[in-house]
């Protein structure tokens, strides 16, 4: 295609740009407007400049929520990405087992997020829940409603249960797309299983891993419904993440200005991390 013709092809994305403008950019502009005003009602608003940003950025409670959020997302990626790759490698390549495994893996992804929280709230209860009672009968002093560490453990296990399937399915699709010739060549060379993984499968998975890491990071960084239903952010503030703090501010206290400023900071953090991940993996892909 001629270079100039290629440039005109960008006009083809205009309909999408218009849809995004109405569904995302205009609401974002509204949030920016709210973030610099003290709003009591549509006709009762006062310009306060960067006051809300200062308040939000210097709030120790929000610093705590941000630190917990970063630790949670890091733990999620650290567990789910290797686990997803490992389980995808163990999945059957052909036969009836493929359909069975795919349906089984898709099930947690089909469950609504607040229902996931409810399932785990019942499942992990130390008095009547299957997991809670089992752990306590093994001699472990487990109580996710009273112990911060137990609450963290439960939220993490719940997230692993809910979302690892996504990583597995993406990796499985990536593995299925590798031509058999690569494996034949490896067999001729007498490559070990590890060498096949390290030099054939892992490089070929980079594209899907980029998507998996990005999606898992973004989803985990804005997690709300599951921990809200499971622990309500407790005990204390132990499992209060950024989105729950934001909701409390915006809906609970109706502090629209600070909530808007907080939303923008939150959005910029997600944008920064996602862009850094994107550039890193893209660069790894180029260097082969």
């Amino acid at each position: 295609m001629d270079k100039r013709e290629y440039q005109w092809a960008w006009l083809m994305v205009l309909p999408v740009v218009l849809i995004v403008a109405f569904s995302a950019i205009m609401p974002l502009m509204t949030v920016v407007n709210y973030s610099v005003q003290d709003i009591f009602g549509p006709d009762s608003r006062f310009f306060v400049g960067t006051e809300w940003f200062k308040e939000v950025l210097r709030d120790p409670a929000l610093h705590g929520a941000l630190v917990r959020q970063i630790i949670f997302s890091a733990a999620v990626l650290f567990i789910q990405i290797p686990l997803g790759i490992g389980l995808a490698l163990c999945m059957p390549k052909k036969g009836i087992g493929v359909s069975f495994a795919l349906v089984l893996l898709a099930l947690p992804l089909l469950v609504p997020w607040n229902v996931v929280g409810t399932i785990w709230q019942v499942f992990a209860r130390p008095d009547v829940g299957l997991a809670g009672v089992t752990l306590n009968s093994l001699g472990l002093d487990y109580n996710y409603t009273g112990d911060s560490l137990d609450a963290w453990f439960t939220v993490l296990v719940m997230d692993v249960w809910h979302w690892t399937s996504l990583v597995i399915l993406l990796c499985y699709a990536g593995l299925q797309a590798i031509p058999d010739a690569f494996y034949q060549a490896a067999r001729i060379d007498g490559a070990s299983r590890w060498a096949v993984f390290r030099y054939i499968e892992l490089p070929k998975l980079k594209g899907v891993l980029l998507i998996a890491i990005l999606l898992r990071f973004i989803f985990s960084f804005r997690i709300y419904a599951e921990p809200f239903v499971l622990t309500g952010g407790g005990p204390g503030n132990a499992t209060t993440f950024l989105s729950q703090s934001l909701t409390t501010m915006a809906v609970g206290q109706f502090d629209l200005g600070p909530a808007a400023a907080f939303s923008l900071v939150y959005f910029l953090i997600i944008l920064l991390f996602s862009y850094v991940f994107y550039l890193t993996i893209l660069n790894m892909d180029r260097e082969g």
Partner: protein
Amino acid sequence: MNGDAGFNLAWMAWTQPVAIFFAAIVVMLVVFGVLQFVIPTYERRGFLPVPTTRGDRLFMSLLGSAFIHLIWLAFSDASLLIASAISVAYAAVMMRWG
């Protein structure tokens, strides 16, 4: 800014500084869009660890400038114009040598 009954933008609670900010972003995008037709960009490697196009460097400049302002607001009570000046310098370095 309120518009008529058919296209009322009052719900967006517009303020002049925010309108100027978004207008500046739109002007920037238009200028860079037109520039792409006049002098098409190409990927090159500067001091950044990845090859970048002009658009990449603009995005990094804007995102970095946003964080410079946020960090300034978090730690300093001095005028925000100083953060803006640092951002302009940062953006210039990024666009030229990034």
